[in-house]
């Protein structure tokens, strides 16, 4: 799969006062693929996403969208490019139903009144297109939905607006097993439909289950962006915790703890 990247961040720097949060970060996001963004707490994952979505201004670096340099000054610019972010807290309104939530702030009108039938139809088509079968009625209030269903609605909302890049911030945190499975399958389906998906997750199983590429941040630096087919679980954990694993990641002298790692091949089941 040698597709041209849809979104490219180059040499992104971000400081908050004396603290340098992102140091010369590169990230490429390809359509039809899930790029998992991993890193320890405080590695800069959320900051990077907020820079991409225009919430934080960047201090240095550039963004390329579809190969063209773009400037992102605010969330409106990002939305205009087709970048949608689904946050952990979802930003859905409890007192509105599913259709109202999906069209919130962008309602369809026919003449003076809202065009409810069209909106309902578009919402239904979007959910059906994503093979979402868990939602009973589109006129259900969001307050009556489970965590997994809410996540589904939030993701479908991003899809409805013809987004090209969907960024998901820990979509499976705080979900049960069955709901996690549904959300992961939905994430995979988004990419299979040709969208570029960025998945932020702490859960290695989620990362390996759906991602095509893994981008690892370590103390504000992008230490590796690798194909999921080329790395093992242990290597990714090393990248997250030490910034280096074998030939991957930061060069050896940059790390001060000086620990050496060796690859070992064990028989199945021997690790635990």
């Amino acid at each position: 799969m040698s597709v041209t990247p849809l979104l490219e961040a180059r040499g992104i720097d971000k400081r908050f006062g004396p603290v340098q949060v992102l140091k010369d970060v590169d990230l490429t996001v390809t359509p039809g693929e899930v790029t998992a963004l991993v890193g320890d707490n405080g590695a800069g994952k959320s900051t990077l996403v907020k820079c991409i979505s225009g919430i934080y201004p960047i201090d240095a670096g550039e963004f390329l969208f579809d190969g063209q340099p773009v400037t992102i000054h605010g969330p409106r610019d990002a939305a205009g490019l087709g970048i949608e972010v689904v946050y952990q807290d979802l930003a859905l309104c409890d007192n509105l139903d599913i259709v109202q939530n999906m069209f919130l702030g962008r309602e369809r009108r026919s003449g003076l009144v809202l065009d409810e039938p069209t909106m309902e139809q578009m919402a239904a088509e979007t959910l059906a297109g994503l093979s979402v079968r868990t939602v009973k009625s589109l006129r259900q209030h969001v307050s009556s939905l489970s965590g997994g269903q809410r996540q589904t609605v939030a993701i479908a909302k991003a899809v409805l607006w013809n987004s090209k890049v969907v960024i998901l911030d820990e979509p499976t945190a705080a979900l049960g097993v069955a709901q996690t499975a549904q959300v992961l399958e939905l994430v995979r389906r988004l990419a299979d439909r040709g969208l570029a998906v960025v998945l932020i997750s702490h859960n290695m199983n989620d990362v390996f289950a759906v991602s095509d590429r893994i981008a690892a941040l370590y103390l504000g630096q992008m230490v590796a962006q690798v194909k999921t087919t080329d790395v093992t679980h242990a290597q990714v954990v090393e990248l997250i915790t030490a910034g280096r694993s074998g030939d991957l990641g930061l060069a050896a002298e940059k790390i001060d703890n000086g620990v050496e790692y060796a690859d070992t091949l064990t028989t199945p089941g021997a690790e635990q």
Partner: protein
Amino acid sequence: MRIGPSQEEVRRQNLGALLRYVHIHGPTSRAELTSELGLNRSTIGALTADLAGAGLVTEAAPRETGRAGRPSLVVRPESSRVYAYAFSIEVDQIRAARVGLGGQVLDLRVDERPHGLAATDAVPLLAEFVKELHHSVPDDALYVGSGVSVCRMMRRDDGLPRLTFTTEQIAAPLSAALATELGVERPVVAGNAGDVAALAEHARGTAVGCDNVIYLHRDAGVDAGIIVGGRRLSGHAGQGGQVGHMVVQPNGRPCSCGSRGCWETEIGEYALLKAAGRDPSTRTAGMLTVVDAASRGDASAQAAVRQVGDWLGFGVANLVNVFNPEMVIFGGTLRELYLAAAAQVRSRLNSMALPAARERVRLRTPQLGEDAALIGAAELAFEQLLADPLST
């Protein structure tokens, strides 16, 4: 010596291709059929007229196109009129459904499968379902045949699984039972659970457009539906795809098949429950409890899921090296296990499979869920109609 296919054969082929297209893709405009099938407009018109005459499709003007010009007629499969019976004999339940052309489940009956009930003994129960289902069938409906998906494991009286070989043996008695029940003789085709689910996912699920697919199916045992070059790989006697009985540990645990150290003894539901220190007779529900406990941080459950996931990746890596599939689908209860242990599965695959083979392989979960067995069984039943639409 014949020079080429006769006109009659070409026609049959084209009729089949058109009917298959609307069967798989749903209502389609004549204009789209013309471009998709690469046939002349007038040929499409003639073929559609023939199929409509036989009551297999209907034609109607689209409601609104929003485009200028005379709208192209839309060809729809007669889903409510043309139907097949689809059966699924699973390890813990039996199901019967009436499935319309186009793959819609029109009506469904489900019951538990008692322990100790052999697959062939389920035939009278299925015939009973058909009797019930047949009450609601409209008079002008057309029955084209039946398909049955058979799980090769059965529960002994104590609830533990045992391997039986009955996939092919079930077609004849079921066919006889249906003939007496419905009064018409139609073909009954049987397939293994894994094969049938693979067929369904290949036709209208997550593997659409993929011609090299391995569908791993786990209920009490593990088997696979393998599609190579767009065709099902069933083996000489229809017994292929028993990947659960690849030996991975020569000195391993004894398996229900009589051998030792089969893959199934490491990744089966029994293995997972045993590794987690749970009661092995709690079956699927117990298996889901282990996965759930692991996600909540239970250390013994996590260790069990990792260990079994590691073994899952071990076998998948071998299969990927042998078959070089585009997609491996984790079906049945492997879906939950794969999602919970994907890191182990992937890591093992990445360290064992050949780079050229593993680079392109996509690991997926099924899209059709529980319905896959019934939809796949119906596909088996529709196969003959699609090969020669006007013969029935």
